[in-house]
C-alpha cells in the first residue's frame, strides 16, 4: 500500500513535469520560432485582396458555382467548404446515396461544360475530398472547365491556360504527390485580370 502511494505521488509529479516540458515549453518554442521564421504560413497562408480584406487561404478550397469561375470539387465539410468543420462524405463503395450523388454530379458537370453524354468525367470533379477543403482540382478537370470560363469572361482560352499553368502546383521535387490546380488562387487571379466586357453573367444552378 505504501508502495502504491509512493508510485501515485511520483505519477502526479511526472504528469506535472511532463506537462510543463511537453505542453508548455515545447509548443511555446515552436510558436516563437514559427512566428519568426514563417509568419505567413504559421497563420494560415491567408490571401488578402487589395483592400486588405482576408479572402481565404492558399491552402483551403472554397465553393464556386458561377460559370465565370473554375469549380472546386464537391465538399462534405459542413454546408460545403466549411473550414471550421472539415469532413469527408464517408460513404462507402456500395452506397446508394453516393452513387446517386455521383450520377447527379456527372450530369451537372457535363451540362455545365458542354460535354457529350458519354464522355468520361475526371474522378476528382464528381467526388468529395477527404477534408472537404481540398484546394485543388486535377489538371484534367481544369482543362475541361477552361473553355466555359474563357467564354463566360470573354477571354481567349490561351489567357486562361496561362493562369491555370501558373497556379498548378506539384508534384513536389518532381516526384512526390499528384499535380493540382489551386482553385481559389486561380479564380481570384481571373477576377484581377483586366476587366473585359462580359458575354453573359447569369449563374448556372
Amino acid at each position, binding site marked *: 500500500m505504501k508502495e502504491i502511494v509512493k508510485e501515485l505521488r511520483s505519477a502526479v509529479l511526472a504528469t506535472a513535469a511532463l506537462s510543463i516540458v511537453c505542453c508548455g515549453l515545447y509548443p511555446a518554442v515552436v510558436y516563437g520560432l514559427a512566428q519568426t521564421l514563417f509568419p505567413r504560413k504559421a497563420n494560415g497562408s491567408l490571401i488578402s485582396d487589395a483592400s486588405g480584406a482576408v479572402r481565404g487561404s492558399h491552402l483551403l478550397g472554397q465553393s464556386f458555382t458561377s460559370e465565370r469561375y473554375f469549380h472546386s470539387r464537391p465538399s462534405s465539410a459542413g454546408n460545403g467548404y466549411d473550414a471550421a468543420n*472539415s469532413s469527408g462524405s*464517408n460513404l462507402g463503395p456500395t452506397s446508394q446515396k453516393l452513387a446517386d450523388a455521383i450520377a447527379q454530379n456527372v450530369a451537372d458537370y457535363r451540362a455545365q461544360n458542354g460535354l457529350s453524354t458519354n464522355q468520361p468525367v475526371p*474522378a476528382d470533379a464528381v467526388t468529395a475530398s477527404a477534408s472537404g477543403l481540398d484546394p485543388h482540382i486535377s489538371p484534367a478537370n481544369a482543362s475541361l472547365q477552361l473553355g466555359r470560363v474563357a467564354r463566360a469572361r470573354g477571354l481567349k482560352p490561351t489567357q486562361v491556360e496561362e493562369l491555370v499553368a501558373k497556379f498548378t502546383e506539384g508534384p513536389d521535387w518532381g516526384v512526390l504527390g499528384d499535380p493540382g490546380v489551386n482553385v481559389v488562387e486561380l479564380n481570384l487571379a481571373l477576377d484581377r485580370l483586366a476587366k473585359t466586357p462580359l458575354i453573359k453573367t447569369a449563374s448556372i444552378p
Partner: protein
Amino acid sequence: MKTFDAVQLALFVGVLTLLTKPIGLFLLRVLDPRGKTWLGPVVGPIERLTYRVLGVDPTAQQNWKEYSLSLLAFSLVSCAFTYAVLRLQHYLPLNPQAFPPMTEHLAFNTAVSFTTNTNWQSYVGEATLSYFSQMVGLTLHNFTSAAVGIAIAAALVRGLTAHSIQTLGNFWVDLIRINYYLLVPISVVYALFLVSQGVVQNFSPYTHAKLTEPFTIQIPLLDTNGVAVTTNIVVMAQTPRIGTDGKPELKGGKPALEDVPLRDAKGEIVHTNLPVMVDQKIEEQVIAQGPVASQAAIKMLGTNGGGFMNANAAHPFENPTPLSNFVQMVSIFAIASGLTYYLGRLSGNQAHGWAVWSAMLILFLIGTLVCWWAEARGNPIHQALGVAVDGGNMEGKEVRFGVFNSALFATVTTDASCGAVNSMHDSFTALGGLVPLFNMQLGEVVFGGVGAGLYGMLVFVVLGVFIAGLMVGRTPEYLGKKIQAFEVKMAMLALLILTLSTLGFTAWASVSSWGLAGLNNSGPHGFTEIFYAYSSANANNGSAFAGLTANTPWYNITLGIAMLIGRFWMVIPILAMAGSLARKRIAPPSNGTFPVTGFTFVTLLIGTVLLVGALNYLPGLALGPVVEHFLNGQTQLF
C-alpha cells in the same frame, strides 16, 4: 498505377532503410540510463532536476511487477488529468471560440483514447476542443503514451537479452529520458519543418474570410432557447359526422363528413413535425486555427494519430503538401524501425534485428500493393455512371496526394498503431478498405506503434519459435532462453484477449439498436464500420471508418473499454513474460537451436502473423469487405 507512384514507393522504402540504423543507435543511448548523447549538456541538468522533483532514484532497478505498477500509476493519473482538462475547458485559458466542456462519456472516451496511444476521435477537433485542451490535455499523451510504448519494448528486450537477473530497468527513468532526449528534440525540428510547409501554429481566434462567391443555405429556425422550431400542425382527417342520435348524419344521401384531428394507435393527436427552415446567406468562410504544428509532429512521431482537425492529416492545415505527407509517413515508421536495430544490438545478433525488420517490410509491401491496386482500379459502379477510369477511386481523397499516397498512408498508419489518416478509409473500395482493417487485426506488428510494434512482434516470435519447436520436437529456445509454458501462456493470453474483445464487441454492437443507430452506410459496409471501430480501438490504432457516429454513450464507453483492454491486457502479460525471461540463463547455441535469422525464420514469422490473423478474423472479414467486393462487382447498392 502511375510510374511516379512506384518511384515514390521506392523512395519511401529507401529512406526508411537508411534511417533504421542511426535511429537504432540513438535509441541505444537514450534507453541506457547512463547513455551519453550530444544533447546531454543541455538536457542533462533538466533530467536530473526532474528525478529530484519526482523523488525517483535513477539508479534504482525495478522488477516486472514494480515496473508495471509505476506504469499503471502513471497511466491512471495522466488519464484522470486529461479527463479533468476536457471537462473543465470552459474555465481554462486559450479557449477563444468559447467551447463548452465535453460530455462525461466523450471525455472518458477521449482521455482513455489518448492515454492508450489510440487517439480514436469521437469528437470534431476544431468544433469541440479549446487550444488548451488540445495542447495540454491531448499533447501530453502524444508524448507520454509513445514513451510508455517504447519503454515497454525496451523492458522486454532487456528481459530477453539479460542473463539471470530480476529487473527490467526503471520506468520513470525510461519515461523521462525517452521524452527529453528523443521525442521532444525531434518534434521541435519536425514541427518547424511542418510550419515551413504551411501547417499553422498560432493561438488566434478563427479567421473570417470574405467569400468570392457567397451562397445561400437553408438552416432550421431556432427559438430563443436554441431549440429547432417545427411546424407543429395538427393533422386533420375527414370522418363521418355522428349525429346526436349516435348515427352517422346524412347529407344529400351521403354521409356528412367533418374534419377531426388524426389520432395514432395510442389515441394521441398526430402533429406534423417538420423543422421550419430559413434562408441563411453564407458570405464568410470561418477558418479554424490553432497550435497545430506542435501537435501534428508528435502525433506522427509517437504513432498517436489524433488529429487537431476532424479531417486529420487530410486537412490542408495539418498536411499541406506532398512533401509534408512524405515526411509524415516516414516519421510514423521511423522509431519502430529503429527499435528493430536496437533489438539486434542488445541481443548481440544484428542479423536477427534485420530479420524481424525484413518480415515487417514484406508484410508492409503486401498490404501496400493490394491497397494501391484496389484504389487505382476504382469503383466499377461509379465508372458505369461516367467517372473516368484512369482517376481511380477519388471519393474521400485529396488531389495533392492522389490515389497512391492515400493508399500508402492508409497502409502505413494501420501497420503502425498511428491512426492518422490523409484520406477517408470509409470511402475506400471494399478490398482497399480491407487492407487497413486487416493490418490492425494482425496486431499492428508491421513496424507497428512505437514500442508496441516491437513487443507485439516479439509475441509472434515467441509463438513462432514455439511452433517450430513443436515441429522438430525440441524445447523451443529464443536468443538462448528456453521458451516454456509460462511464456507461451502469456503470449496466447495477449493475443486471445484482443481477439475476444474485438469480435465480442463487434458482435454485440451489430445486433444492438445502439450499435446500428450510428451507421452511415447500410449492408455489409455498415457491418464493416462497426468491425473497423472495435478493431481500431482494441489495436489502439484510432483510425476509423468515420461515417460511424460513435459519439454516443454506448459507443464511447464500449470503445473506451476496448481501448483499455487492448493496451493493458497486452502490456501486463508482456511485462510478466519479460520478467520471466530475464530470470533465465542464456544457453549457448547448439546445432539443435532454431536460427532466428535468415529466410526460414522470416518465412516462419510472416506465416505465424498471417495464420493467427487469418484464423481469428477471416470469418468476420468475409461478412464485411469480402462480400461487399463481390456485391460491388454485381452493382448491388444499399
